[in-house]
Structures are given as C-alpha cells and as structure tokens.
C-alpha cells in the first residue's frame, strides 16, 4: 500500500493552519471539479484532493495522520500500524457526497470505510441514476456498434457495508447517434433499497476527435484540397466520406472556401445530417525552375487582380 502525502496533494506545508487548508482545498476543488474542469485528469485529481481534505480539515483525523507521518520513510510502502484501533480513534462522520467518493486503501486502512451514506435512509428507496460519458468514433455512429464499458459503482453488500463494485456492460450504440446525445439504460443505475426500483444509467456520447472529419450536430464537414487547375477547370475527385468513397464533381471556377453539400451523407440520425466538403486551393510550391517559370508566365500574361475589391492599384 502506498503512503499518501496529503499535504503535498493540497500544496500546503505540514504546519498549515486549518484556514490555509480550507483555502487550498477550495482553490483545488474549483480547479479540478469534474463538472467544470477542463483538465484531462480532473476526476482523479479531484478525488485525491477530496480525500486529502477529508483528513486534513478534521483536526482529529489530521492528528492521527500526522502521528503516522513522524516515523514514515519516504517512498516506503505503508503498512497500517497494528494497534490503530486503539491509537487512532475518531468520531466517525460520513463520507462526502453519499456513495460517489471512493477513498484509497491507504485512507480506509487508517479511518475505516466511514459512514455508509446512501443506502440506509429508507427501507424502500429508488436507486440512484448514474451518468457516464462514453467515447466513440464517428464511424461508430455511421455503422452502429457495441461497446463494453466498465463502471465503478457503489453498492451495498449483504452485511450492509458499502462496497465498490466493478461492472462490465455490453452496450449497443445505435446507428445515427449524435455528439452529446444520451442513451438511457433502464435499471442499470444503483440498486434500490427494499422494494425500491433500481436507478437508470445515462450514457452521454462523445466523439473522439478525427483527423479528417469535424462534427456539428448531425452535420459533418471535411476539408477538400484541390490544385488550382482542378478548381479552375473543374474535375472529378474521389472523396473519402465516413460512409464510403464517392466520386465528387467539382464545378469549374470553384473558389477556395466554397462548401459543397452532400445531402444526407452526414450522421444517419432521425433527420439525417449533411456532409460538407470545404474546398481549399493548395498551391504548388515555387521551389523548382519549372514551376517558377510557370508562375512567371501567368504573372506576365494574366490580367487577374485578386485585390480588385480593395480598390488599390
């Protein structure tokens, strides 16, 4: 078991006052709150900060923890002292936020499992609904797929203790699902108490960023590079769409930035989205004599003024 340096987690010294700890916690909680944070590992960080605060904010628990610290060697595996029952009494108190926080083994070896929160409030209680995010590829939305998701869920064991259970669910991801859309899995939330029904599980879908395609609602857009002569003279190109390669006709005199709409080739939602190919004129670099000469000939012979609208000579 790994020793947790709660002071380090909180970014305060071992001699910090309770006020300093409170301030540090508030600041870190805002930074890493999973509902607001833009940090990648927010949820994990938030849990660590929450656990550190749970110990340090409570003078009794903090004293018990400090006592342990005096003979602790850095990097050494932590072994709970054998006499902790008598040595580290504290007055209980429940875990914050019902069953949603799970503390480390280190915490539980010191302070036990804490109050069991949820579960005991009524004999018949509806189980809690849960929300989770699920990351899929755009392709999955075009084809539909099945995903195995792993959930950590607090549950109540037969002896009434709260335990964290890991569950694997094979979930069908329907074709045509859009970013941010939710799937409700009835009865897959927390178990109810007594005659209470189990809660539901809501899965919110998020698309993994794609190199080629961008998604907006049910519409999908992609950049399509063209050589200047292709855009000027018109051509046929092969376009790799999420639903397969198609031949796309580029009309003559297509300007860069022009959007070609392919109706119904976006996400096959209830109302199918469209696919937009956004034209980009790719300029051949003038770094060999042949190409330079070619540009020079256009420069000499062409009357074209790209800045005609700016009204300067």
């Amino acid at each position, binding site marked *: 078991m790994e020793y947790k340096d709660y002071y380090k987690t909180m970014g305060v010294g071992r001699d910090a006052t309770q006020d300093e700890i409170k301030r540090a916690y508030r600041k870190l909680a805002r930074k890493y709150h999973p509902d607001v944070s833009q940090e990648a590992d927010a949820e994990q960080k938030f849990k660590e900060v929450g656990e550190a605060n749970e110990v340090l904010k409570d003078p009794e628990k903090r004293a018990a923890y400090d006592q342990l610290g005096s003979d602790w060697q850095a990097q050494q595996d932590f072994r709970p002292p054998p006499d902790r029952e008598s040595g580290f009494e504290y007055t209980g108190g429940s875990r914050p936020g019902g069953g949603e926080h799970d503390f480390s083994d280190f915490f539980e070896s010191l302070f036990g499992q804490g109050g069991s929160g949820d579960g005991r409030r009524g004999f018949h209680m509806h189980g809690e609904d849960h929300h989770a995010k699920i990351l899929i590829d755009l392709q999955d939305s075009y084809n539909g797929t*099945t995903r195995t998701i792993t959930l950590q869920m607090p549950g109540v064991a037969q002896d009434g203790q709260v335990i964290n259970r890991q569950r694997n669910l094979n979930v069908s991801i329907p074709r045509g699902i859009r970013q941010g859309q939710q799937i409700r899995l009835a009865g897959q939330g927390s178990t109810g108490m007594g005659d209470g029904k189990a809660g539901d599980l809501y899965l919110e879908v998020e698309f993994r960023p794609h190199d080629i395609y961008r998604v907006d609602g049910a519409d999908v857009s992609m950049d399509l590079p063209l050589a200047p002569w292709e855009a000027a003279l018109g051509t046929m190109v092969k376009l790799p769409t999420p639903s397969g390669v198609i031949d796309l006709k580029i009309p003559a005199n297509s300007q860069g930035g022009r959007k070609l709409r392919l109706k119904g080739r976006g996400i096959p939602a209830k109302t199918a989205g469209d696919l937009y190919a956004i034209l980009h004129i790719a300029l051949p670099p003038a770094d060999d004599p042949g190409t330079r000469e070619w540009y020079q000939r256009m420069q000499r012979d062409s009357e074209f003024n790209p800045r005609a609208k700016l009204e300067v000579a």
Partner: protein
Amino acid sequence: MTRKRIIKGQLLEDSDLVTLDELCRSCMVETETVTLLVAEGILEPQGQSAERWRFGITSLRRVKTVIHLQRDLGVNLAGAALALDLLDQIAELKRGMQN
C-alpha cells in the same frame, strides 16, 4: 466472459421531455429544489404550473451539476447558475473552434 448479453438502451432525443416527478426522482432531489432552480432561471420548463412542467432532457445533467457544485464547492444558486452559463459558452466556443 460466458455471458455476453448486449444491452440496448433508449436513445434520448433533444425533444424528449420529463415531468417534475421524473426529474426529482432521477436527480434525487425534492420538488422544492427544482422550484428554486426554475426561479433562478437555471431550468426553463415548458408549461405554466408545476403540475404541467415538462423539462428538456438536458435538465437532468444541469440539476446534477448544480447539486455537485453546491456540495463540493460551496457555491450558492446564483454562482452555480453562472458556472453553468459559462460552461455552456465554453462548449459552444469549443464547437466553433472545431468547425
């Protein structure tokens, strides 16, 4: 891996609505809490009276976020409402950046 049961969920559309009771049950809050959120403008249900209120499906997520923010950060309702608005703006900007 002997049992590979595939669960088919219900795909929720933006147009799907929930009643006050359903919202309260799902978020495990009292009706008073929802009433306060409506008064604060955090939730905008259709329907004139509480009995007729119908909430958009995104309300579930909003209520939960407000509760989490209040519980974990100690913000009041107005603060939570402000955070929600800013979160919406960030999401919109991100979408804009992508396209």
